[in-house]
């Protein structure tokens, strides 16, 4: 039961960040923050699916990004290999964009980057939603 509740909480966080990413972009033009939130939304959506696939999270609570590829490829229930690989690729690119947005002060983050991030975030949500139908 605890896992079901936890999965629901992660799903809510994913949905909240999904909305926040769009709001940061369209409402205020905070592009770096929007990229960062887009990654987090996708991360939270992946964690939701991992919990729904009976994956036990590490004792500190959250899987690190570095463990995500293996977890995605080996554990998601109802997800084909091709779809898991697509989710994996999307979250990996989102992670890298997030690192650039948050830590590379002299890199240029523009509207195109934000749109790419949203597209990847949307792909993760769509693929994982379809997997559960």
């Amino acid at each position: 039961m605890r896992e079901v509740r936890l999965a629901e909480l992660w799903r809510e966080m994913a949905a909240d960040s999904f909305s926040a990413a769009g709001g940061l972009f369209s409402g205020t033009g905070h592009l770096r923050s929007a990229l960062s939130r887009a990654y987090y939304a996708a991360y939270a959506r992946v964690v939701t699916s991992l919990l729904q696939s009976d994956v036990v999270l590490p004792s500190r609570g959250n899987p690190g990004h570095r463990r995500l590829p293996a977890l995605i490829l080996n554990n998601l229930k109802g997800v084909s290999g091709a779809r898991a690989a697509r989710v994996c690729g999307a979250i990996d690119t989102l992670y890298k964009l997030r690192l650039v947005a948050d830590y590379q002060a002299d890199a240029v983050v523009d509207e195109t980057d934000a749109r790419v991030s949203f597209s990847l975030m949307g792909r993760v949500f769509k693929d994982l939603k379809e997997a559960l139908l």
Partner: protein
Amino acid sequence: MSPQDDGRIARMIAKLRELLRKQSGNGVPLVIADDGYVEEGGWVYLILTPAKPGVRAYEYVERLNELECELRKEVDGNILLVPAAPD
């Protein structure tokens, strides 16, 4: 980290620099420091930074992804190429 691991990662970095030299005209110029890596959970994270300021975020990431694919053809192991981040 064992001396064998040190040698393995040094070879990865050398191969990566070779790829960067070969493709120096393609896309965003990137560099990697001798100690530009983190090893964790069986994965090696190679940290590349732009050689000049003002690169565009997606072009930087796209370049990392391309290099990652090329490097995986050349060396064994779980490798990810990433932008710099706090430890």
